[in-house]
């Protein structure tokens, strides 16, 4: 349904050109949930925004690549044509539910606007539809809440309203950019449940962007791991978590504080900081922090290599070399603990 081919997004800043998205290719099938995981600055939000071309131009430029959505390249479309797609066929929800709603309009009006922009419908029908949507996203007493303003809603409820607006035209694809990051854990659990229910009911494909590997494990069918503007590993969720074949993903998974670990267990941290994208390191972007690093890594920039079953990883080590090195690292750690 959606296919992104070798997409590059550059940001022209005062300190130089930032290659925020640097040659990214992936696809999303109808009805599937794809998780995009990465830290801040990995380019995941810029990527998501570029799918609907929401990055302000300038500073953003699209020097290369294609975004094919149902046989059309979105990068070739005019603004007028894009508007027919935005909110209609592809919808988006954002991290901050307060700033994504207009504070001076009632929730009901904002919902009806979304409905009537893309569908010719009488006010009355639109209101009925809005009511139904609010019910679907689990807002109690929807009838009276149609006349409330955004500030009268809590964070979790606002996110529900945004999801209702996103669903207004039954989009084929929903892009969720960190939808639960600003929410408390118990509210996050509610919203994640809601997204699962909605997918079941509407059959919408979802791209969920997050830094939380737990959220991805819960929701996604497939996962893309991003690091400094590139996809460094891609595969079905089980493969990414249980058959990791890229040092960054492996180190990241090991470094997480986990609820299912032992009390007071020491975390296995990753050294260093994420790279500066204006002046990325030579060779592999992860090489300065990588525990697997070889001399070659400082020279060669690895591309995504197929490891079977749709599992791709960007590492110059072959599968057997990777496994060997992994065991070496674990042996060294074990000796360190014993001493």
């Amino acid at each position, binding site marked *: 349904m959606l296919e992104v081919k070798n997409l590059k997004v550059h940001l022209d800043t005062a300190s130089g050109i930032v290659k925020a998205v640097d040659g990214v290719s992936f696809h999303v099938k109808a009805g599937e949930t794809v998780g995009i995981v990465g830290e801040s600055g990995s380019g995941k939000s810029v990527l998501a925004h570029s799918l609907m071309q929401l990055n302000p131009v300038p500073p953003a430029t699209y020097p290369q690549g294609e975004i094919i959505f149902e046989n059309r390249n979105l990068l070739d479309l005019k603004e007028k044509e894009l508007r027919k797609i935005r909110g209609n066929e592809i919808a988006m929800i954002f991290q901050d539910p307060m700033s994504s709603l207009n504070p001076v309009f009632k929730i009901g009006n904002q919902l009806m606007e979304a409905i009537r922009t893309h569908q010719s419908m009488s006010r009355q029908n639109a209101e009925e539809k809005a009511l139904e949507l609010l019910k679907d996203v689990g807002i109690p007493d929807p009838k009276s809440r149609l006349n409330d303003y955004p500030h009268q809603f809590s964070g979790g409820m606002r996110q529900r309203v945004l999801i209702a607006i996103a669903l207004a035209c039954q989009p084929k694809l929903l892009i969720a950019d960190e939808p639960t990051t600003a929410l*408390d*854990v118990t509210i996050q659990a509610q919203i994640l449940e809601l997204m699962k229910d909605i997918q079941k009911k509407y059959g919408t494909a979802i791209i969920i962007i997050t830094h939380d590997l737990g959220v991805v*494990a819960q929701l996604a069918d497939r996962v893309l791991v991003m690091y400094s503007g590139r996809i460094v590993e891609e595969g079905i969720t089980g493969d990414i978590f249980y058959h990791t074949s890229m040092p960054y993903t492996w180190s990241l998974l090991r470094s997480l*504080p986990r609820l299912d*670990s032992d009390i007071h267990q020491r975390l296995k941290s990753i050294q260093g900081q994420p790279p500066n994208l204006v002046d990325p390191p030579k060779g592999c972007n992860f090489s300065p922090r990588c525990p697997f690093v070889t001399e070659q890594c400082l020279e060669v920039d690895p591309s995504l290599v197929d490891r079977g079953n749709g599992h791709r990883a960007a590492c110059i080590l072959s599968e057997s070399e990777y496994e060997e090195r992994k065991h070496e690292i674990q042996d060294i750690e074990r000796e360190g603990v014993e001493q």
Partner: protein
Amino acid sequence: MSEALLEVRDLEVYFPIKKGVLKKTTGNVKAVNGLNLSVNKGETLGIVGESGCGKSTLARTILGLEKPTSGDILIEGESILNYSAKQMHRLRRDVQMVFQDPFTSLNPRMKVSEIIAAPLKAYKMTDNIEQRVKELMDLVGLKPEYHDRLPHEFSGGQRQRIGIARAIALKPKLIVCDEPVSALDVSVQAQVINLFEDLQKELDLTYVFIAHDLSVIKHIADKVSVMYLGKMMERSDSESFYNHAQHPYTNALLSAIPLPDPGKEKTRERIVLKGELPSPANPPTGCVFHTRCPIARDYCKENTPQLERKGNEEHEVACFFPIEKGMVEAGSENLLR
């Protein structure tokens, strides 16, 4: 005398709600509503709760930045509430804070060395400042060549290291950390958590570690307290806490955290709480949690549970119907929706 370094007794912190031209007080936001806790030397106390539960107010009150409505705060057995400005100045040397946001808690116009030296100068420890700053930077893992840089040249993790260096500069006894890792990148969180643990061993520090994430607390705390609407719901040593959490709220919190393990996620039983946090200006009657509790009964609406010892000596729960071990895993019907 008890060996507790910090003791909080029946602490209440209310913020008045003022209305009208005359600014008449029409009510109170009960941010902290009758809280007791104690932390022994060298221990880490983890305080967990959702936003709005009063955990940051508690932190600010411990540091004397907020005046309590009633109750007492004792440090090394001495009440600090009626301290004079001079005594307070002396106290601040022993009690330091690390803030959540490493971007706003550092002065953007000061060099790293000046930021770290500021507390030393404030306490007139002026001999060998340069040497001491170097030591501190080394201790928190900042390279000596960063000496003259400004905060904006650093990433979040490194800024937090600067904040930590500043906090330990005066060799404090107690450090209150308010969500110190929640603003950091995932790949950097582990470094900073490990740094906190190393420093504790090296400098014999005591931490009050506030977080909303029970998995972070699991790695660092010796004791855990769970807050909800300004009240303590459950407190225990970590072992017993993570082994068998008894309060329904704690169980809901634990089950709400997504595990980075798709297999476990699929089979896991989860308590999804209904509704949202009630307003602390108008807390529910009886047990404050009854409006969202999956197993609340009529009795809970009228009677307020007190913290009571349940099972293990250190484990206290404020609930009339605590959850028995294995109930969540078994997917007990009235617990799960």
